[in-house]
């Protein structure tokens, strides 16, 4: 629908005027906080002092805060841990999800219904916080990075999305490969995967964003603050406003790096930006696949 249909009324003056205003306000509500945080993170001490806090009008931009944060210490370490957990976790989750989604996608295969039921039932109830904690504890995974991956490695929703996509692949393709003597693993690798790049990409990105944003598992299972992922650092120093440690093991000082030190507020806002940037980087890819209707199709079906 790119042009107004002939039977439709002309829009009223109020409608013509208010629609762009409302849409702009909605867009600003999302974009403005991000803009302020980015500008403040790039501001010098003088700019922050003149603004009396957060900076709206950019002047005297500097990357000092990022240099200080990324030259070792608490935030650098947390960032590395988050990147590592996200990479390993996503590869693991995506791998077993693809396998299971294909394994459950062939109609009439043996045990296919009860196994699907086992997956679907997880939508209805969860084990609860305390029993989950006791299990992870008894497995010896407290303060172990595996506790950030294994307990929530599978999203039944992602699995079902991928399965319904696989089920849409014509059965003739798969049957003909089978007649040619291909085994199930070969069929998955050579026929199904090349046809499913979009859904695999979207589910992978969903898992990646999930791991990057995860905070609950770290809160429950990681007591050692040297093993904190970035979201725990964000929570401790921004939300709870505890003072950032400086010096050895903390944040590098500006004078130590031979530069004008960044103001404390810019450093805090830089941590927020560091937590946002990876999401912003993958977001265009996620969005492109929405428009192809992968997720909408799955929601509808």
């Amino acid at each position, binding site marked *: *629908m*790119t042009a107004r*249909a002939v*039977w439709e*009324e002309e829009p009223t003056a109020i409608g013509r005027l208010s*629609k762009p205003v409302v849409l702009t306000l*909605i*867009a600003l509500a*999302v*974009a403005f*906080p991000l803009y*302020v*945080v980015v500008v403040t993170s790039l501001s010098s001490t003088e700019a922050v002092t003149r*603004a*009396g806090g957060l900076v709206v009008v950019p002047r005297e931009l500097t990357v000092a805060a990022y240099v200080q944060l990324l030259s070792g210490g608490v935030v650098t370490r947390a960032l590395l841990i988050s990147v590592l957990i996200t990479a390993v976790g996503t590869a693991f989750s995506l791998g*077993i999800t693809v*396998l*299971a989604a*294909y*394994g*459950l996608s062939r109609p009439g*295969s*043996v045990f296919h219904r009860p196994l699907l*039921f*086992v*997956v*679907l039932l997880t939508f*209805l*109830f*969860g*084990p*609860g*916080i*305390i*029993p*989950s*904690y*006791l299990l992870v504890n008894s497995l010896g995974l407290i303060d172990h990075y595996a506790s950030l991956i*294994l307990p929530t*490695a599978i999203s039944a929703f992602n699995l*079902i999305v991928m399965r319904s996509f696989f089920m849409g692949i014509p059965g003739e393709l798969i049957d003909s490969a089978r007649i040619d003597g291909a085994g199930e*693993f070969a069929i998955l690798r050579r026929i199904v995967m090349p046809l499913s790049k979009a859904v695999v990409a979207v589910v992978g990105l969903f898992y990646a964003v999930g791991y990057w944003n995860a*905070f*609950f598992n770290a809160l*429950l299972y990681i007591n050692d603050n040297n093993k904190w992922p970035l*979201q725990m650092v*964000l929570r401790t120093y*921004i*939300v*709870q406003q505890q003072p950032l440690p400086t010096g050895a093991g903390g944040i590098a000082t500006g004078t130590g790096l031979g530069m004008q030190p960044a103001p404390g507020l810019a450093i805090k806002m830089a941590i*927020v930006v560091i*937590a946002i940037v990876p999401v*912003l980087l993958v*977001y265009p890819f996620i*969005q492109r696949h929405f*428009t192809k209707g992968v*997720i*909408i199709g799955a*929601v*509808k079906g």
Partner: protein
Amino acid sequence: MTTVVKPPERAARQAAPARSEKRSGMRFRHRLRRDWPLLVMVLPVIVLLGVFHYFPTLGNVIAFQDYSPYAGIRGSEFIGFANFSRMFSEPAFWRAVANTLSITAVQLIFFFPIPIALALLLNSVLSAKIRNVVQGIVYLPHFFSWVLVVSLFQQMIGGAGLLAQTLRDHGHSAVDLMTKPDTFILLVTAQSVWKDAGWGMIVFLAALSTINPALYEAAAADGANRWRRLWHITLPGLRPVIVLLLILRLGDALTVGFEQFILQRSAVGGGAAEVLDTYVYYQGLLVGDFGYGAAAGLFKGVIGLVLVLVANRFAHLVGEQGVYSRS
């Protein structure tokens, strides 16, 4: 998400055992020999769900124990419903229940209609380009973590945030909306709207795209203006989705999100910010009263399950498809 078993298929399955046992046994062995690679593929997921989902669910027996971490589940003494009766006489527990239910109610009134309104607004925009840009912007916060969302709200309307800063600059006294217990319920709803209202719109946009445009044209030819078309065509077209989401939300009445509240509980205080999930976490893990915490968690889980099932049954009664079909 639906497992729809169609009646003919169901009849065929019921007829299957009537065949001779020997033949069905052969068939089963044949299918097993044919399908075992598929079973191997599903195995890792089943094992993980078994270990981290189903097995700990059994661990809820400690709700009926005077659980001690040293004695373990096997060594701890069973005390029947003592944890539950203590819980029901605890004002703090009922406060957590009341907070949870009021937050659900407020979100139903102030959050639920917004994605519908957004979808209608966006659907009426003629330019595909503008639609795409706006969609790209409003979906984005869904992909932010709660830690990030709370941080951003703090920077905007917290005690040291932009709002307080601007008020101070103009000689007013600053307000800190992040620590006020009285308005906390509106604050968390605003946060949810900011984060997820745009994302919630997707389902409604999909439903809108399935409405046959010929209906609008025919209605217009019969003299229906835009509001009558909205009332008589658009809203009935959205009704199945609205009913389904309403049911899902009601079934989830006891779940309002853990992270959003645990992050703000210390700033606002337990009086306003304690919900059932944070209550379980505090009593069970921070106080260390595992059995009692598990009892609160089990209470929430069982009532929640009943609510989902009842809501779904209700959906069938009013003639909607519901979350799953009974088959």
